[in-house]
């Protein structure tokens, strides 16, 4: 079938990015060789090897932590707060200047559409540095008492879904509050973090303030367990979050966790259907559904179920899947073969448990890892696809009759990261919002983010906040904490 709208290919040029054949680690202001092995990072849209990167060993981690400690004690800690802020402003500006380069590299390494990396990930990352830059010399107003103190060295482990943005969410507040960092990017998406290391050099950031150690799970474990790390910040799966919380138990390390989710997106019968459909699509298909706060459970009031579903399926039929670098692409590649296997498995379980799968007709590229946008109906609350985080473009549709039932179903999960409410009635928005046990609630919108808006979970979606004044508490100790 030919698509409803025919577009000529409009690929973004990748010539702006110079990917090196191999990368070392960024420790103490310089790229250095690691002592361990190497791994390949792959373009998930083509399976082409992009580069070879270092798997940081425990020795490498130790070297990075020592560099961070030195920088904390000698340079970054004693520095005038206003000057720390100026470095962060520089970084924000450099990210804006090199935005296109970062966006292309992010789409190459991650598989996300260039429209998203260009218009969301990279601008948000720059905004995060800009916001936190201003905090550096205003920490007396953070609400933690006068002259709150940094914690020291932060060990930070981030996921592959928003590599550059998660880096910004971690590094910007840590640096603004006077800490130094060792950051481990995700195994499958190390490249923008390594490009960020170049930005640190261009900004003349003192050596050791930011250290980037690439690697996989073992590297992350070494970092989290390092005795000279004062603060651990992790974004990723709840399973790994539990392991990290166990490993810091009994230490003085402070911990924040931003983990999985299974967000309900609740549509009442008086909702503006067309806007709700756009919000549902953005909620679950943004970034191929590789979003911890994705609106993966659609709760529709029974009376509008059929109308909404028809409209939703029509809209999904217009989504364009394919080359992430094509500016018309809506849905890019699944980040890894491993993740694709998980999405397929959970979808098959969905069918086996009795839910009905719907996918639009679409042709997927021959190479690379792809999964079409998928909607499950006839889903019950007990089904795995209604309980487990799929972390892919898979929507489960459930129904409800009363507001109480909607709230009960929405809260019937071990997670509590986000939720959505669609209704034209203001008092209902406020009442439902109040009763949802989730850290972010989007009313008549979905998947909006801002550095001034604290983000983080309830229940097993983690603890601690990122962004805003509330987010600073994760990196400071004051009289009041």
């Amino acid at each position, binding site marked *: 079938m030919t698509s409803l709208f025919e577009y000529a290919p409009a690929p973004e040029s990748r010539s702006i990015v110079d990917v090196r054949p191999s990368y070392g680690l960024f420790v103490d202001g310089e790229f250095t060789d690691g002592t361990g092995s190497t791994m390949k990072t792959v373009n998930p849209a083509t399976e082409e090897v992009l580069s070879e990167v270092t798997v940081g060993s425990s020795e490498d981690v130790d070297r990075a932590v020592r560099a961070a400690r030195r920088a904390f004690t000698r340079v970054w800690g004693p520095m005038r707060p206003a000057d720390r802020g100026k470095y962060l402003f520089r970084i924000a500006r450099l990210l804006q200047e090199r935005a296109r380069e970062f966006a292309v590299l992010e789409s190459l390494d991650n598989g996300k559409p260039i429209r998203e990396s260009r218009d969301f990930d990279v601008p948000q990352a720059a905004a995060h540095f800009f916001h936190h830059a201003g905090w550096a010399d205003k920490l007396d107003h953070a609400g933690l008492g006068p002259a709150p103190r940094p914690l020291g060295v932060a060990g930070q482990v981030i996921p592959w879904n928003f590599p550059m943005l998660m880096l910004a969410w971690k590094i910007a507040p840590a640096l603004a509050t006077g800490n130094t960092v060792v950051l481990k990017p995700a195994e499958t998406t190390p490249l923008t973090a390594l490009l960020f290391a170049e930005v640190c050099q261009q900004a003349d950031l003192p050596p050791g303030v930011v250290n980037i150690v690439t690697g996989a799970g073992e590297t992350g474990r070494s970092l989290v367990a390092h005795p000279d790390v004062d603060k651990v910040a992790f974004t990723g799966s709840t399973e790994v979050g539990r392991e990290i919380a166990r490993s810091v138990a009994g230490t003085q390390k402070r911990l924040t966790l931003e983990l999985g989710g299974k967000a309900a997106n609740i549509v009442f019968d008086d909702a503006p259907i067309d806007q709700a459909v756009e919000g549902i699509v953005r909620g679950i298909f943004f970034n191929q559904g590789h979003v911890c706060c994705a609106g993966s459970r659609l709760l529709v009031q029974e009376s509008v179920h059929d109308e909404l579903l028809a409209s939703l399926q029509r809209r999904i039929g217009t989504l364009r899947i394919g080359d992430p670098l094509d500016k018309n692409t809506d849905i890019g590649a699944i980040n890894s073969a491993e993740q694709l296997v998980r999405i397929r498995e959970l979808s098959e379980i969905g069918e086996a448990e009795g839910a009905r799968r719907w996918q639009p007709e679409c042709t997927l590229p021959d190479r690379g890892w792809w999964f079409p946008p998928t909607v499950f109906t006839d889903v019950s609350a007990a089904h795995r696809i209604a309980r487990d985080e799929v972390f892919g473009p898979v929507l489960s549709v459930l129904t409800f009759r009363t507001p109480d039932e909607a709230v009960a179903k929405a809260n019937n999960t071990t997670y509590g990261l986000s939720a959505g409410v669609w209704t034209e009635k203001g008092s209902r928005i406020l009442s439902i919002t109040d009763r949802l046990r989730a850290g972010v*609630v989007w009313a008549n*919108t979905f998947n909006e983010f801002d550095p001034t808006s604290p983000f983080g979970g*309830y229940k097993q979606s983690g603890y601690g906040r990122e962004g805003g004044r509330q987010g600073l508490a994760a990196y400071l100790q004051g009289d*009041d*904490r």
Partner: protein
Amino acid sequence: MSDRLAVRKTYKLYLGGAFPRSESGRTYEVTDARGHFLANAARASRKDARDAVVAARGAFAKWSGATAYNRGQVLYRVAEVMEGRAAQFAEEVAAGEGLSAGKARAAVDAAIDRWVWYAGWTDKLAGVLGSSNPVAGPYFGFSVPEPTGVVAVLAPQRSSLLGLVSVVAPVLAAGNTAVVVSSLARPLPAITLGEVLATSDVPGGVANLLTGDAAELGPWLAEHADVDGIDLAGAPTPLAMELERSAAGTIKRVLRAPAEEPDWTADPGLSRMRPFLETKSVWHPMGV
């Protein structure tokens, strides 16, 4: 002194607004600081702890949903009722902790004042910890603090009343409900506090006070799937690490304990409320 024979109190648990014995039928002997018999206290069991969690969960919606003004008045009422019973508390504290009458009374006064202090916090948390978020787009955004849920509190082992109030009041002021394990050796003020709570408009189940051994009950509470947070104040050091590890299984919020029991007369700031408060950020588009 009259020659009237005193009517002694039976110390039971305070659970779901009632005063049951331990379902296990177990009691243990409580002595004063010199080793003289004071009373037989109930030794709460694992099942009592689980019942207490059920009671606390059941009470959460109403307590967290009450207006901040209402919660503040209820907690202030606790102080009022405690004030009337100050002599009884002072006697129990003096006996259990081996303090002079004057020092025991000072501890009781500080405990009463702590309720007053926290009662005044209920309607200030949102203003102090919340925010209006100036996002870069046509959206109205705000963040509010909300209670974490059901919090298990292992009360301090030494300070049997001031320490106890210092860990329970902040959990309740923040809007949580609590399952509290008292000091093992000095449990009596906890049950008398239960009598105060029961007569102070604190809804049943909001605070559940179990007497017994934190080392026995702590592990069940730390791994309980319906407990959202745990305060390790009264957990001895090796146990505290084990409990924190166990709490990780359900991503509980953990308030760690310092190696030494702190001076409970110090100003606590927000340090005992923050760990059991979540932040909810809300977005809505602006337009016509």
